[in-house]
């Protein structure tokens, strides 16, 4: 593939923390940057298409989860430069848990699942660092969801937080 992402553009992203300079360079060579306009949908909740891992180079994306029980915008997260989107489903290829929409002009680096497999084979150290990051990111997401779920339950039951 013809990469159009420079190593410098992603070196400061949290997903590259712990990578060597050569590792960041290797990752950048597997990425493809695309431009998106405000309102562009990068991935859609429930869909198994567009399963690339996204690293935001410029601009902002809003990730939201909706379309259940007729209630919209249950969960909304704003992601900016250096953040990663499309995590859920990237490794396993499952349907997206949310919808990612560009909220400004964006430039986003795409890593396909095929390119990631290739990266794991040729540069396993980079693959290991990225997978560690994904474990930690997914765990943080779970902890946030668990906390919000407990808050919702407490509202439903009229319970007070234990001191």
């Amino acid at each position: 593939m013809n990469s159009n992402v420079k190593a410098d553009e992603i070196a400061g992203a949290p997903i590259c923390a712990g990578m060597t300079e050569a590792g960041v360079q290797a990752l950048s060579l597997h990425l493809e940057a695309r431009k998106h306009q405000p309102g562009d949908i990068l991935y859609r909740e429930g869909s198994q298409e567009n399963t690339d891992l996204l690293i935001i180079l410029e601009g902002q994306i809003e990730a939201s989860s909706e379309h259940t029980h007729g209630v919209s915008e249950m969960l909304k997260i704003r992601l900016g430069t250096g953040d990663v989107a499309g995590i859920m489903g990237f490794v396993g290829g499952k349907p997206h848990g949310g919808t990612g929409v560009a909220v400004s002009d964006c430039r986003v680096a795409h890593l396909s699942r095929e390119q990631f497999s290739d990266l794991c084979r040729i540069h396993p150290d980079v693959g290991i660092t990225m997978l560690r990051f994904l474990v930690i990111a997914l765990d943080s997401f779970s902890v946030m969801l668990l906390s919000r779920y407990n808050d919702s339950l407490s509202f439903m039951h009229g319970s007070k937080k234990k001191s």
Partner: protein
Amino acid sequence: MSEYINVDEIAATPLCAELARESVATLTRHMSATCHAKGEVLYAEGSLENNDLLLLLDGQLEIKTEQRYENIGSLRVVFEPGAVASLMGFVAGHPHVTTATAMSECRVARLSRDQFAHICETHPEIAIAVLKFLVLRLDEFSYLLLDRYKEAQAFVQGAYRR
């Protein structure tokens, strides 16, 4: 006291599903097994200690969070043989978010962070398979929590409308 593990004990577990027999044997050599009596705490919520990755070989483990609200039960899951516990302490060295207690006599296979670092150096393909498995497990857990959160929110928002 730790014991050796036979490769057949872990070969059929989901953790090893994507590994060749030779890789399972390598992984086994980096693990040790410990036995635990009923009621024994294997790791405690909030603690940074006991951060080995645990693969349950025999018995049942109760995984539970502290009760944070009055009248609302805490999150509680029972793990059966083949289940993996202590993911975050193992991967990130973060404090445990749950407490694991033996519900019966248990035998668990352990992979320490040091041993895993060694595997990353010497057998990166095994490390990648283990980490992919952990990502998939967390993915499943996130989908489950997202569903439950949505149901709870739908109820709350419906209650607001009324």
